[in-house]
């Protein structure tokens, strides 16, 4: 492990408490404790509705993605280019951030800088208060979830309303999101109908039919769109050379929020920057195909500085430009940047392709990751943002099969980062009892494997133990460390009569291999 990483991921949590808002843990009565992926996923995997929905969603999107990706002849080169654009931007992030700030300012917008979640929330609250509004409408945004914005606004008397359908469902139900793209995928249509009837819709007024439910959301939110004066958004891409912001969406709620209210506030992570509009063309080709499996998402809005206000006869007295504020958020990203291996995670464009191909995610669902960021990307991002001490066993939430790396449109080597994080995790366990035991046993394995005689004796004994004791061990093994972890969910393997070496010596190798 490099020296930098050890100071970054201090075992006692050198991570400020303010940066842990993205955790969705529920242990020890503490709101934001350590992540326990294994115990949470063991529970979640029994939720059959969730598994059915997620399996349907991931399978469908996977197929759609494959189809539209195959239409792009140079997909692989395009991934490489996107990855390099991101690496290049990160290597010069200070320069590009200042360029972006200059250009936004020139176009009349105002740029704010927030070192952590707490500061970003305070700036946002202050801006909302200045506008005089007591409520805001929100475009779906991961980063506002990461900083716990909604809870903070509510505590301070500002009512936030999520306008993306799935985010609205989660907000009304008090649910955590379970997928980056389709956050309410763990719910079925009857549950969603019930959630709506328990909140804004009249009891018995709704059918459990997706078009009817969507229609109810349309009516409910239309009122809010027409009345609201402040919208809060995230941002998919920030373009340094022009100061432009791009928001990519499907429902039109984003356009509503960006078009109707006269005050727009964006909160965006500093890693969302790209140098040029030409680079944006690359990402707009990669993102929708990777994310929803469409050639293009229904709506993309790109604006620079203060967008023009929408003039209508009743609004004539307003200024001809909206007020525009953007908060650039660090919240641990610069710490990730200083990790040679881990910094790749900052290239993420939140497409969720890695979730859809992950065999682990497909079975355990998004809630098992106990973080705003689920799936493979969550398993590498969350530990880096909150530190190893709080991330618990999250870096082990993977089989390292590499499917995520293959589909990632910006070529983040997720398995490589997982192994890197696991080594950091093991280094922190070095002085604990389990760490010592583990190191001790691998030391013994090392000695045995380094000596022919010892190895022969050991392999002969293991095959005998398996042969005669296997059935018993399969029954009582779950109480016997260290094999309990294995026997809990599967049987011990059956040992052949001869080891490979014995068979070779006896000349029966061919027969053994044919078995």
């Amino acid at each position, binding site marked *: 492990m490099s020296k930098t990483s050890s100071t970054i991921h201090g075992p006692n949590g050198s991570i400020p408490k303010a940066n842990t808002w993205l955790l969705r843990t529920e242990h020890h009565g503490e709101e934001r404790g350590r992540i326990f992926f294994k115990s949470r996923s063991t529970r979640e995997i029994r939720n059959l509705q969730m598994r059915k929905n997620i399996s349907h969603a991931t399978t469908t999107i996977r197929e759609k993605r494959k189809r539209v990706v195959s239409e792009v002849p140079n997909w692989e*080169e395009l991934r490489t280019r996107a990855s390099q654009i991101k690496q*290049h931007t990160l290597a010069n992030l200070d320069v590009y951030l200042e360029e972006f700030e200059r250009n936004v300012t020139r176009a009349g917008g105002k740029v704010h800088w927030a070192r952590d979640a707490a500061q970003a929330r305070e700036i946002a609250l202050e801006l909302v208060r200045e506008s005089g509004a007591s409520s805001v409408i929100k475009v779906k945004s991961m980063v506002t979830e990461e900083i716990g914005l909604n809870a903070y606004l509510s505590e301070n008397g500002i009512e936030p309303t999520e306008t993306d359908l799935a985010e609205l469902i989660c907000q009304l139900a008090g649910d955590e999101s379970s997928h980056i793209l389709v956050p309410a995928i763990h719910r079925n249509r009857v549950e969603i109908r019930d959630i709506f009837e328990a909140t804004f819709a009249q009891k018995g007024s709704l059918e459990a039919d997706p078009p009817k439910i969507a229609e109810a959301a349309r009516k409910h939110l239309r009122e809010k769109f027409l009345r609201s004066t402040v919208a809060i958004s995230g941002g998919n891409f920030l373009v340094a050379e022009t100061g432009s912001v791009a928001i990519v969406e499907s429902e039109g709620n984003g356009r509503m929020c960006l078009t109707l209210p006269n005050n727009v506030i964006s909160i965006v992570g500093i890693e969302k920057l790209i140098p040029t509009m030409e680079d944006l063309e690359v990402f707009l080709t990669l993102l929708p195909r990777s994310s929803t499996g469409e050639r293009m998402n229904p709506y993309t809005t790109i604006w620079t500085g203060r967008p023009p206000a929408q003039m209508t006869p009743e*609004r004539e007295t307003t200024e001809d430009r909206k007020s525009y504020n953007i908060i650039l958020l660090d919240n641990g990203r610069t710490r990730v940047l*200083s990790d040679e291996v881990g910094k790749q995670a900052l290239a993420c464009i939140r497409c969720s392709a890695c979730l859809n191909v992950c065999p682990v995610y497909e079975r355990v669902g998004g809630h098992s990751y106990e973080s705003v960021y689920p799936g493979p990307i969550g398993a590498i991002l969350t530990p880096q943002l909150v530190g190893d001490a709080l991330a618990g066993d999250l870096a082990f939430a993977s089989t390292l099969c590499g499917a995520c790396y293959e589909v990632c449109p910006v070529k983040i080597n997720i398995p490589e980062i997982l192994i890197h994080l696991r080594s950091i995790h093991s280094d922190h366990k070095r002085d604990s009892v389990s760490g010592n035991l583990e190191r001790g046993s691998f030391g013994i394995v090392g000695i045995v494997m380094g000596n022919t005689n010892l190895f022969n004796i050991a392999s002969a004994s293991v095959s005998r133990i398996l042969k005669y004791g296997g059935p018993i061990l399969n029954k009582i093994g779950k109480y016997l460390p260290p094999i309990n972890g294995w026997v809990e969910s599967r049987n011990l393997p059956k040992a052949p009569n001869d080891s490979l070496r014995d068979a070779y010596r006896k000349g029966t190798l061919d027969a053994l291999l044919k078995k």
Partner: protein
Amino acid sequence: MPSSKNEILQRIRQANTSQVTGVRTQSTLIRTTPMGDSEAKLDHDDLVKQFIERVEDYRSTMVEIGPDELASAFEKVLLGIEAREGFDTICVAPPLLHLFNKTVAGYKVTHPDRLTLKDYNSKVLGTLTGCAIGLAASGTIIFNSSDDEAPGISTLVPDHLFVVINESQIAQDIVGAITSFDLGRPLTMVSGPSATSDIELARVEGVHGPRNLTVFVVRQ
């Protein structure tokens, strides 16, 4: 205490000076453009055909018309749309107003300047507008808030969006498409009607924006 801006920039510089890997300069980037070169050779007719097919793929309605047929084609489309109680108005972008004589298919033809936000929500059935360009590869229409277009509010709030595009406005793909605009005005890229798949991944059109998109492609 340093300002948070300086603190963040300082941390970035510190992180980056200790790095050995990374693509520092833009000149070392791999040269490739979205969609590569292979589709770039479509001839004009195939390009228009691809555009029509791919916009249709989003469950939009495509109507091919001759140079002087917009008014009659639009009327025909409107007559085929189910009437909605109280929605008696069509918003028409100023450059297209001269095509109509006060009404079309029984709807009042109205200049956007005379419509309030409330009108768009409770009276305007749909909006007829021009656009900046179309992209064949992705079936996308780009608006750049120019005078040829009806205002953003009018293409977003009503149930129907009707777009007129000249075949000469259709480009192959996104390469060079968004870099060519004056960024003083917002760009809006539209690919099909508003849609969601948030409930059990079932696709539903018209969540917040227009429920239906109709595109008139003007052929010479």
